[in-house]
């Protein structure tokens, strides 16, 4: 945690992306989270991803609920509008904003307490509706702000800092997201930026619901022996199914991988997800296979990471609602107010 203000000056030689912004333009206020918090690493990955996909910062709309993770939208992409909603109810607010202004890029950041307990219902329903968003769960398996209670993603049998053992089964948000119909599902580790950044880039480019579960150890309350969300445990049990690159529509396409090891997935916006298989039997376009694979590995205590599932042809809530091309918040009076003749006709029908 630091109270040192960031200097506002930018060095003139900082690298600019295709839309003219430097990496600094995607930063936010100074974090007030604990030094070493995994969430800050995730913020850094979000900043990097937004910079690399040439997203104009103000076209991002960032949302969160309540909790340590939900503080983080203040710590990245300051030129974007942000919304810190009530506990667990971020998905509905994001859904409403998306319905009003669909041309923006929607990023919801949440935690395991926020998403898997009070907000589990909203999480499920936003996913099943296919809201076009990237939903990142910064999953540390503990309630940090209230100093160390188990959350609903804490593994059964894992230990709290003071030694208490969790007796309840864990909710696996990745499995849930797959079952509910999310069309882009990944899991990563806050300490693995090389994996996380491309995962976020792909999600932000994806049309439909993208869900990324990021194991993010809590240095204050859940980074000890017996915790399955500690740095050491995750490093020892992390099993990546693929490595990934994202090539945005503007970037030149390079062939970096040998044929046979590589799967290229073209998304709606023209971006290409380039997946290099690490597990021979893993197919990230097969939802049922992904569910089975994840269940087997979970039983072995392994944490499967990478892009676990993607449907590049996904539709979204606006397709279901058959809304006009123009954003609803830009419709003019003329387009919204029916003519007087319509009202007179209605009056006549009521006599």
């Amino acid at each position: 945690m630091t109270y040192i203000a960031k200097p506002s000056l930018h060095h003139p030689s900082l690298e600019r992306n295709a839309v003219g912004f430097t990496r600094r333009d995607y930063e936010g206020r100074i974090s007030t989270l604990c030094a070493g918090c995994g969430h800050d690493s995730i913020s850094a990955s979000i900043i990097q991803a937004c910079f690399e996909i040439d997203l104009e910062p103000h076209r991002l709309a960032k949302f969160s609920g309540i909790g340590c993770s939900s503080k983080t939208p203040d710590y990245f992409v300051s030129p974007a509008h942000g919304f810190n909603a009530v506990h667990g109810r971020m998905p509905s607010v994001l859904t409403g904003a998306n319905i009003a202004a669909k041309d923006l890029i929607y990023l919801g950041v949440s935690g395991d307490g926020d998403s898997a307990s009070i907000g589990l219902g909203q999480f499920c329903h936003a996913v099943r509706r296919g809201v076009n968003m990237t939903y990142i769960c910064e999953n540390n398996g503990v309630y940090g702000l209230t100093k160390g209670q188990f959350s609903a993603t804490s593994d059964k049998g894992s230990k709290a800092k003071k030694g208490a053992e969790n007796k309840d089964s864990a909710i696996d948000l990745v499995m849930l997201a797959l079952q509910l119909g999310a069309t882009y599902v990944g899991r990563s580790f806050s300490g693995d930026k090389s994996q996380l950044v491309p995962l976020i880039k792909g999600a932000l480019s994806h049309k439909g619901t993208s869900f990324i579960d990021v194991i993010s150890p809590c240095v204050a309350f859940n980074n000890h022996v017996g915790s399955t969300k500690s740095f050491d445990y995750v490093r020892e049990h992390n099993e990546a199914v693929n490595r990934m690159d994202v090539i945005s529509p503007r970037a030149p396409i390079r062939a970096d991988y040998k044929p046979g090891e590589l799967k290229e997935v073209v998304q709606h916006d023209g971006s290409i997800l380039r997946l290099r298989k690490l597990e021979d039997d893993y197919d990230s376009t097969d939802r049922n296979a992904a569910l089975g694979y994840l269940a087997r590995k979970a039983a072995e205590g392994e944490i499967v990471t990478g892009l676990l599932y993607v449907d590049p042809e996904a539709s979204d809530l606006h397709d279901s609602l058959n809304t006009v091309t123009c954003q609803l918040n830009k419709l003019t009076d003329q387009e919204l107010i029916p003519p007087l003749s319509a009202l007179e006709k209605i009056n006549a029908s009521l006599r």
Partner: protein
Amino acid sequence: MKPIVATNDFVVKFANVNGSGSASANGMFAKVILRMGVPVGARNIFPSNIQGLPTWYEVRVSEAGWLGRRGGVDLMVAMNPQTWDADLKEIMPGGYLLYDSSKPLPASKFRDDITIIGAPLTELIATEFSIPRERQLFKNICYVGVLAQMLGLESDTVKQLLTEEFKGKDKLIEPNFRAFELGRAYAEANIPPIGLHVNRSDKVGDRIFAEGNDAAALGAVYGGATFCAWYPITPSTSLAESFQKYCTMLRKDADGKNRFAIVQAEDEIASIGMVMGAGWAGSRAFTCTSGPGISLMNEFVGFSYYAEIPAVIFDVQRGGPSTGMPTRTQQSDLLLAAYASHGDTKHPMLFPGNPTEAFEMGAQAFDLSDFFQTTVFVMLELDIGMQEWLTEPFKWDEKRRLNRGKVLTYEHLEQGVPFGRYRDVDGDAVPYRTYPGTHPTKGSYFTRGSSHDKDARYSEKGEDYTEGMERLLRKWETMKSHVPAPIIKKAKKRTPDGVIYMGSTDPAMEEALCAMESHGIHLDALRVRAFPFNNEVFDFIRDHEQVFVVEQNRDGQLKSLLVNEGGVHPARLVSVLHYDGTPITARFIIKDITEKLQAGQAAALPEKAK
């Protein structure tokens, strides 16, 4: 007992079984009389049940134009054996009973001070129709035929309505005609003329017969609402369904795409959450619900107040507390809505008095919520929302433009207009806002429910917090001159007594005032149409020695708000409370106020309160 004799001035009540298909026949009965130019007040009194329980439909025929419930029944159409005894008791001495005489009933089941009229409806229908469901449905049309003959309703008008009703399902028109004629012919041959009669008149004018929920939904369309997020709950569900109907009719573009979005949410919390998101992003959005839904929405409503986000909630009030009486009417969510959520909050409310006002306020609520950036409640009631009222036609000024409030655009920001999300720039305590995505480098801000400074930055400094809270209070003051003003009617004679009321009480109150005046009781009257209360409301109280506050709840919630917000001495306000779930009647108001006046309520007024 002398039979009641009345033309164009009587009450008919239908007792039916829920799910028997009687609603459309009963509604048609009311509409025929309207088409004959005679005003009608109709009330569907139904149970919280899909099928099998008792249901009633009461039609007040009143050439004088009294549209509230009168109390008492002149003609009971008793089609439900379960409620026979209670229905029989309701008939006024000298009144009439129409029943299905297909099965004989013992003399003990009747009264000797009323006229008993039997019509073998089941037998009649059985001669023409063989399918059980048809027999059930056409029995209803058959009794409309009997009533048409008994009361002098125009057969051609009935048939015209049947034709309109079944337009597109032409096969159903002929059997309906047949069922109607069966009843009419039977009555012509067997039932002697009775004392009740309908004569064609010209007192309906261009008025329409509309439901408040339908009207409010249409108001939302004209008010520019593009998004409805809702969760089913009686009695608000039909509002969302009407919004869907009108949007489908009026808001499609040339390619068949929707200039609207409607989401049936997973619960009330998600509904209001979506409305918050859409309002924040610049769309006009609403939800519709009832008391239990408002309870669930409380946290977000407080958020809207503090973070200053527009939202509209249509609260169609029903009988509370808890699940209460879902299909009965009350005015009992006032305190819940006015101060919803934790901490210090206040929320504007609009009180439509009829479907026409439900339309107008349904549109106006969106201008108010956008301008003041807060949740606006439109306080409907089941009695207005789900009942068909004879009401003025909907009007719209084509020159009217939607007032989006203080929104800074890209051009404003480019021109260097300074932006601070919660700054009081104009001295009216209403800040400026920007929609997300407006400008690459200017105008963004962070919205939060935690305490913030004038520039929307997180701050726990006491002075930042109190400054924000005091500005919200000043905004409340500004609002007073923007919400609909009360309607004041002065008595013909100067009087120290006044009466304040709201919403669906209006027609019963108009009748009560007229009747009391004819008995020498004069009251100045004020109908409250909005909260915060306009200063005229408190001027009215100050100008009278005592003011009756008539409302449809147990605890005098309107009175509480008047005392709380205006510093009025409670003894100046005398509650007249009706809360059994049925719409208030003129007779109730007259009786209660008269008794209180006779008891010398004013004498109890403390000296200092005068």
